[in-house]
């Protein structure tokens, strides 16, 4: 093996890498930066009704996203998604913007002040989560594009 090369079969602990355990999904730390605003921002996850950083309160034990079978669609699929609430006027994220990971079956938002992108796919069978697959592998930059006078829907790009 060349000096300095990663060992064969080395795992890739990329940002947003999901893990499934006991009805919860945890993630490797991933960040999102506003295209021309602040960042990087660490998203939060709701745990027992309280928003905590995705890396956990102590930064060592990742916060677990609670997932429910009722969220899955008819195909037995649901998503862990990143949701951002940009400043309505500028479309940029600020240090006070809400940035959260949620469990949902909708991957797209058409609302002007809510951006959403799926970061992991969760497979269900018989009311139990079977497997979680990563969708995003890198830290993200967020950009909102509002429709011009011609109409259309807002676009939320996660680059």
């Amino acid at each position, binding site marked *: 093996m060349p000096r300095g090369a990663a060992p064969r079969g080395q795992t890739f602990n990329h940002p947003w890498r999901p893990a499934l355990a006991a009805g919860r999904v945890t993630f490797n730390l991933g960040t999102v930066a506003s295209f021309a605003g602040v960042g990087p921002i660490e998203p939060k996850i709701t745990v027992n009704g309280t928003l905590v950083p995705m890396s956990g309160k102590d930064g060592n034990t990742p916060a677990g996203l609670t997932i429910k079978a009722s969220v899955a669609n008819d*195909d037995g699929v649901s998503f862990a998604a990143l949701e951002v609430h940009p400043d309505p006027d500028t479309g940029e994220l600020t240090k006070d913007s809400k940035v959260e990971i949620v469990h949902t079956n909708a991957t*797209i938002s058409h609302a002007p002040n809510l951006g959403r992108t799926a970061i992991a796919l969760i497979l269900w069978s018989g009311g139990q989560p079977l497997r979680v697959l990563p969708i995003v592998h890198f830290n993200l930059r967020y950009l909102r594009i509002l429709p011009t006078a011609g109409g259309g829907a807002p676009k939320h790009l996660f680059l």
Partner: protein
Amino acid sequence: MQAGAGMTLASSLLGDALSARPSPRWKHPWFTQPFWSPSAGRWVATIVPGFVNEQAPIYRATVEEQKTAGNPWDINPLTGKQFFSDPIFAQPTITNSTRTVDLPLYLNPAIPMDFRGIGFDGDPSNDVPQFFIDLGAARAPKQPSAQDVLNGNPQQPDATPPKNLRLLRACDFWVHQPRLALTSELTLQPGPATGISNVTQTLGIASPAASDVLRVFQGTFTTIHLLHCGCRSTGGGLRRAGF
């Protein structure tokens, strides 16, 4: 208590704890794994799902093909329902040989592989990388040139296989992403009085057919394939996945 593969066993004062951990070997999206299927008697492959705009591509297969490969696909493992619970499939005229099923890549469908020859028994116009020559493959016998044929002196290629020849096979996998396409139609009409022809160009938008979805194909990559998969236009985005 004994820990199996992928498991860890930890002992404490309160007892033993057995936990599962994910495989340490990470496989990237689109990782393609070929293997021999004894039941099908052919090579098949699975692909680690990648996502295009958060959607996993499907592989469209016939039921008979998947049954032969050892995947009956009678029941969707995620929903617990029959894949063909739709009433349209109750028609007796639809047989397993023609019934198709769209299998998302996250269900790990076995994709039968259709190989083509490269090198000695392949298309002479395709070169063989030196890497494979070093491993025992050989280039296709040299065909007579057009000049030789015109001169009436075509040299027949030497079809004798080299010693220790290893045949080379190839199969492409690619992702097909349908999209809207721009259409253009030109009409030419003679002018009524001046005799100068009028050319009219009509631009339009063509939508993909309903059956044209994000999907994976295998075989020999060609853009002409668009014409066979239901695209009404000449548009369509294609991305090739190497194998």
